């Protein structure tokens, strides 16, 4: 998309440039929808027409599944990440801090968890953000609600769940992620763990004066959204392909309900096992979901699968390492323990309800 020369134009040129960006985005959206609608016929044509595989063969089914899912998920990821980043460009960590200032526990936790999803936030900013929140008087538990919901409700995972399971499961994931962030934040707040924050944090003098970022132009918003869609798709496409390939293999070859005994509702230990397994798997969320999708078709339970998902994205080792700069080991342990426990409970709840 040729938008790179459109940033930082003088104010008098702003309107025409923005119009140009809108036209480009509108055309891209049309192209996106057109592409999205030809994937299914194309995948069928490729597997059953061009490769002439019989429709009831394992190989034919696996391949048709693969050729359909790969472009679908990649298109969905690109389009949705673009939209999500657009939405996020209206928020900032500094604005969120201003909104959370003076909020008490409870309402503050709910707001922080919601803002954690929508505030643009990269894990390398976790430490300044933590210091900035705590120093401005936001309670520790409220700060944690933000820090938990930001990774637990992961946008790539959300889009993949939507693409492979539909909006209901994606919605469930969103709501349970929020609930976990709220509850875990409240619990951490109640435990009064301020003494386990590294001492230097309390001594930092934050500069005064509210620093809020300038509102970007529409062209800049589109540019940021385009860059982030490109970056994320560039980062995960290989995982998506490998994940879907494995998933397609399972889909075509593993017999129905083969996994009900191991990953089904009856196996009580499968939820904690899924969480334990999920923690070290960080950053492969894009590859994990297609496999998990195929496993579910063969009898794995939804709660177990969601618990696994949230453990994969929410309890990442790299983030713990970053947060170790400001949190003493005891607080890190409590953080992991509380979030893992909340995820396990959520997993059981879903297995109970569905």
């Amino acid at each position: 998309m040729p938008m790179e020369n459109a940033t930082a134009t003088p104010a008098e040129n702003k309107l025409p440039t923005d119009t140009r960006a809108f036209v480009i985005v509108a055309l891209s959206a049309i192209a996106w929808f057109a592409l999205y609608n030809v994937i299914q016929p194309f995948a069928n044509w490729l597997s059953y027409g061009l490769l002439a595989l019989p429709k009831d063969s394992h190989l034919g089914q696996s391949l048709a599944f693969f050729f359909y899912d790969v472009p679908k998920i990649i298109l969905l990821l690109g389009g949705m990440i673009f939209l999500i980043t657009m939405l996020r460009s209206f928020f900032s960590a500094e604005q969120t801090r201003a909104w959370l200032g003076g909020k008490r526990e409870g309402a503050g936790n709910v707001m922080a968890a919601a803002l954690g999803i929508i505030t643009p936030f990269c894990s390398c900013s976790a430490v300044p953000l933590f210091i900035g929140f705590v120093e401005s008087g936001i309670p520790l538990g409220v700060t944690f609600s933000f820090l938990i919901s930001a990774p637990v409700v992961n946008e790539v995972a959300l889009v993949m769940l939507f693409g492979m399971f539909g909006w209901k499961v994606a919605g469930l994931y969103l709501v349970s992620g929020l609930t976990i962030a709220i509850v875990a934040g409240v619990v951490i707040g109640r435990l009064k763990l301020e003494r386990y924050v590294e001492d230097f944090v309390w001594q930092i003098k934050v500069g005064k004066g509210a620093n809020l970022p300038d509102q970007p132009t529409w062209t800049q918003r589109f540019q940021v959204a385009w860059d982030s869609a490109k970056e994320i798709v560039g980062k995960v496409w290989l995982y998506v392909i490998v994940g879907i390939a494995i998933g397609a293999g399972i889909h075509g070859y593993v017999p129905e309900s083969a996994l009900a005994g191991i990953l089904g509702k009856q196996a009580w230990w499968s939820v904690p096992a899924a969480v334990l397994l999920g923690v070290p798997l960080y950053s492969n969320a894009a590859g994990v979901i297609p496999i998990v999708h195929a496993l579910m078709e063969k009898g794995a339970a939804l709660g177990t699968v969601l618990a696994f998902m949230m453990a994969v994205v929410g309890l990442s080792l790299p983030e713990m390492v970053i947060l170790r700069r400001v949190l003493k080991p005891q607080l890190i342990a409590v953080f992991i323990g509380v979030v893992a426990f909340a995820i396990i409970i959520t997993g059981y709840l879903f297995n109970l309800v569905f």
Partner: protein
Amino acid sequence: MLTIKVLGSGCANCKKLEAVARQVTEQMGVQAEIIKVTEYPDIMAYNIMSTPGLVINEKVVSFGRIPSPAEITTWLANALEKT
């Protein structure tokens, strides 16, 4: 002589911003000292939370994103006028 500070703990975006800032100063041919601020207390003193941040002559001009070379050029030109 301008003082340009790049605020950030050393993540990929901070390095990218430093490279862009260096490239712009060279293109403009301005004398500038580029300092990397990596310690959290020093970063926080500028009251920002999203890194990378860019500071020109002690004024925070951007944070939480990598500004375009054109933007940095404008800010540097403004800072030069004032000195």
